[in-house]
């Protein structure tokens, strides 16, 4: 898997993905085990990604799962049950919190953004 720090480059270098997220303007929390990341998106581009811990984080929605679940999700060909965010939710491995509207209104975009960390160095 790629490390979450690589996410801005992996997303911003893909013009079509950025275009598909052109109405997204939000900050979300990505929690990988004990490590939280704040991801700020403007017009489909990731403007910043900050690694916690944070004292007073502000976000619109949060995706929280343990590291093992994310690592399986980010394998090049994930095993059944770990291959999609909704699958992780169904099997109670991931929680989606906060205002889900931007996430649901741009669901295919966010699924592709998160899947960008698939592959990379093992």
């Amino acid at each position, binding site marked *: 898997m790629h490390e979450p720090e690589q996410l801005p480059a992996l997303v911003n270098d893909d013009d079509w993905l950025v275009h598909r997220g052109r109405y997204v303007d939000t900050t979300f929390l990505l929690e990988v085990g004990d490590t939280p990341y704040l991801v700020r998106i403007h017009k489909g581009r990731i403007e910043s990604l900050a690694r916690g811990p944070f004292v007073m984080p502000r976000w619109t929605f949060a995706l929280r799962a343990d590291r093992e679940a994310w690592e399986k999700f980010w394998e090049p*060909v994930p095993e*059944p049950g770990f*291959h*999609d965010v*909704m699958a992780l939710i169904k099997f109670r491995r991931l929680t989606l919190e906060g205002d889900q*509207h931007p996430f649901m*209104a741009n*669901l*295919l975009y966010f*699924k592709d953004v998160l899947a960008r960390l698939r592959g990379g160095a093992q």
Partner: protein
Amino acid sequence: MTEAMFEPIIGRYVGLELLRKHHRLYIEEAGQGIPLVCLHTAGADTRQFRALLNDPEVLENFRVIAFDLPYHGKSSPPEGWQEGEYQLTSRDYVDIVMTVCEALGLERPVVMGCSIGGRIVLHLALEHAAEFRALIGLQSGAHVDPYYNLEWLHRPDVHGGEVCAGIVSGLVAPTAPEAGRWETLWHYMQGGPGVFKGDLHFYKVDGDIRDRVAEIDTSVCPLYLLSGEYDYSCTPDDTRNLAHLVKGAQMTIMKGMGHFPMSEDPESFLSYLRPVLREISGGAA
């Protein structure tokens, strides 16, 4: 000059009375022999079965028939649809399938349904087993636990087509060919407002038959269950539980397959289906 390459599929409209209202249903068919009626998934339409409707081996011995449920594909809703919310119930769904089979004069057809279609074949097995030669449930389970808020599927501030495709995109196996994946999702992007959600009323609320499936008698009508390993809506375990409860049901878990076997990876799906059809037709392909 480019020559037109026509497929063997014939598409027609049929007018008929369903649920005490006039309907105009869209029906596709190809092949000859044993009638094989195909039921599409929630929020989609008959285009999901186009590979099956084009398979020369299957068409040699089966008359493959697929129809769009009312509100789906080219089957428009009945007059007055604008006055209320669309909600599919098990009662209505059974009535629709039985009425179509009767109207077409099908004699003991095979019915194969996927997802909601895979659930309704269980209702058919319980209530009308003697009227069918065999039943095939794809992604078939007796119940599905809701795992997201269905309200997201139909509200004016979220694009219905995009969110429906987004919800089901993970149900396609990650190993599916890209063309099959995105054709499957396109069908979801084209659904009418609230239709996928209305179908799921049957799937998640009304059609729970866990306490009845043990009564299915496979000696009257054989039941085949084929499920994809990547499906987290109807999971392989859901199908295993069902097969455990229904004595004589034949189960296959399909590797590298998700919730939409016939459209996400048609070639691989046909390799699982052809032996089942051979068995049903008594050895012929």
